[in-house]
C-alpha cells in the first residue's frame, strides 16, 4: 500500500486539476481531453485501490511510558 509510495492526497489533487481543466475549456480539444480522461481513469482506479478496506495498524509504543513516576 504505502510501499508503492502512491500518494492519495496528490492523486486526489491531480484528479481535481483534471476536472478544473475541463471546466476551464470553452471548447474541449478531443485529443487532449482523451489524454486527460485516460489519466483520470488511472487515478480513479489507483485511488480506489488505496481506499479499499485496509486494516489499521496498531502498535503500543513506549511500553514503560514512565508509569512508575513514584
Amino acid at each position, binding site marked *: 500500500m504505502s510501499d508503492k509510495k502512491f500518494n492519495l*492526497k496528490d492523486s486526489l489533487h491531480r484528479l481535481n486539476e483534471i476536472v478544473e481543466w475541463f*471546466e476551464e475549456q470553452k471548447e474541449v480539444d478531443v485529443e487532449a481531453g482523451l489524454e486527460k480522461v485516460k489519466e483520470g481513469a488511472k487515478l480513479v482506479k489507483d485511488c480506489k485501490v488505496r481506499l479499499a478496506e485496509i486494516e489499521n495498524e496498531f502498535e503500543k509504543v513506549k511500553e514503560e511510558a514512565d508509569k512508575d513516576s513514584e
Partner: protein
Amino acid sequence: MDNDLLQKLKAWRQNRANLEGVASFRVFANKVLENIAEFKPSNKAQLMAIKGIRDRKFAKYGEEILVIVNNSKPEPLATSLDAQPGKPLSVSAYIDFLNRQLSKWHARIQGEVSSMDIRERVIYFSLKDSDGEGVINCLIWKNDYKLSGIEFEVGTEVILEGIPDIYKPSGRLSFKTSSVELIGEGALKKAYDQLKKKLDNEGLFLEERKRKIPELPQKIGLITSETGAVIHDFLTNLGKYGFQIKFVDSRVEGQAAVRNLISAVDYFSDKDIDVLVIIRGGGSLESLQAFNNETLVRIIADFNKPVICGIGHEKDVPLASLVADKMVSTPTAVAHVLNASWQEAVHKIELGKEQIFNFMRVALSERRETVNHALNIIERRFKSIFDNFTQVEESLKRSFVSLQLRMIDIARTLVECPRTLYTQMSHVLAKANQDVVSLEKLMVTYNPERQLKLGYSIVRSGGAVIRKTSQVRQGQTVDVLVEDGSFESEVKKINKK
C-alpha cells in the same frame, strides 16, 4: 536483577529529571535502568555496552551511574536489622535502611498547608490536619510543584501523594511529595475558572490559533488508558483506511495522571505522526482534573502537530480540549473526525470520475453535432447545386420542347403556305379578272370614241381638248374630231352664254 540497585537508579533518575525539569524517561528508559541493575557495569566500556547508552548519555550521566553501581557493591545494604547481629550500623547506613523501608509507605495524605519556604529548586512546607493537631514536614520539587498547577497558600487544603524520607544531613523526616491535588469540587471549580480566564486572556483558545486537522491523516498518535471502553470505542469506529496508530498507554484519572499524560504528549513531540489524539471517557471535574492542569494544557497548546481531544465532560469543558485544535466529547466522535476526509476522498473520486466522463461525453457529442451540422450544410449545398441542375435541365428541356413545338409549327406553316398562297393568289387573280372585266366594261362605256359614234365630237387645239369658249379666239383654226376622222374649222364668232 538487583532490585535495590534498580530502586537507587530510579531515585537518582527522578532527581536528575527534577533538576533538569524533564520527564524521567528522557533521562533513561526503564529498560536501560533494568539492564544496568542486571549487568552492573563497573567501567565505561561495560556501561557503553548496554543498549540505550551512547556517547552523549555517557558524557552526561556515565560517571554518576558508575558511582551508584560501584557503591552499591561493597557495602551490603542491610535489608533487615537482624541481619547484622552485634555489629552497629553507621548513621548513614541506618538512615539508608530506614529510607528504603519508608519508600514502601507510599501514601496520599490530606491536610492544609500551614507554612511555606520556597527555595530555588524545592519548596519546604508543612501540612497539618484541618481539625487536628498532626503536622508533617513536606517538600516538593519546584518542578513537581509547577506541574501540579496549584498555588500553595497557607490554608490551602490539598491531598499530597508521595513517600516519607529522612534527609541525611539533618535527620529530619519529610514527606517527599510527588503530586498535589486540590480538595473538593468547589476548589477545583475555582482553580478551573481562574486558569480558564488566564489562558483565555492569553488567547490560547482563539480559533485562529487552531491548526487544521490534516486531510487524509494516517499516522495517529494515540494517548489514553489501555483499559476501559474508550480505546475500544475509538478503534472500532475508526474506518479501515490503513491508519497507523501509535499508542501510548497513560493514566487518565485524577491529578496523578498529569505526569503520565505530559510524558506521553512529550513522547510524541519528535515522532512522525500526522495528528495526536487524546481521549478519555466522561467524568467529574475531579476525575478530569489532569486535563485542566496548566502544564499539560500548555504542552498541548504548543504541540507541534494538530491535536484532537475527545474528552467526555459534564459542565466544564476540559481546558485541554479548549486548547486542542479540534475538540469533541467522545472517542467515537474523534474517530469520525479522522474518518471524515477519507470518506470525502471516496466521494471526491466518484464525483471526479463522473465529472470527467461527463465533460468528455458532452465534448464528444458537441463534436458529433458539429460534424452533423457540417454534414447537413454540405448536403444542403450539394442538394441546392443539384436542384439548380435539375432546374436548369428542366428549363432547358422546356426550352427544347417549346423550340420543338415552334419548329413543328413552322414546319406546319411551311407546309400550309403554298396552299394558302395558291388560294390567295387565286382569289387575287379572280378578283383581278373581275376587275379587268368590269374595267373593260367601264372602258367600253366611257370610251370617247364611242361618244363620237353617238354624234358627239371633240374639239382640240394644239393637242388640248377645248372645253371653254375662253380657250379659243376668233379666227383660230381648231381640229374637230368625229367618228370617222377629223377636219379643220375656223372660229367665226364666239357666243358666250
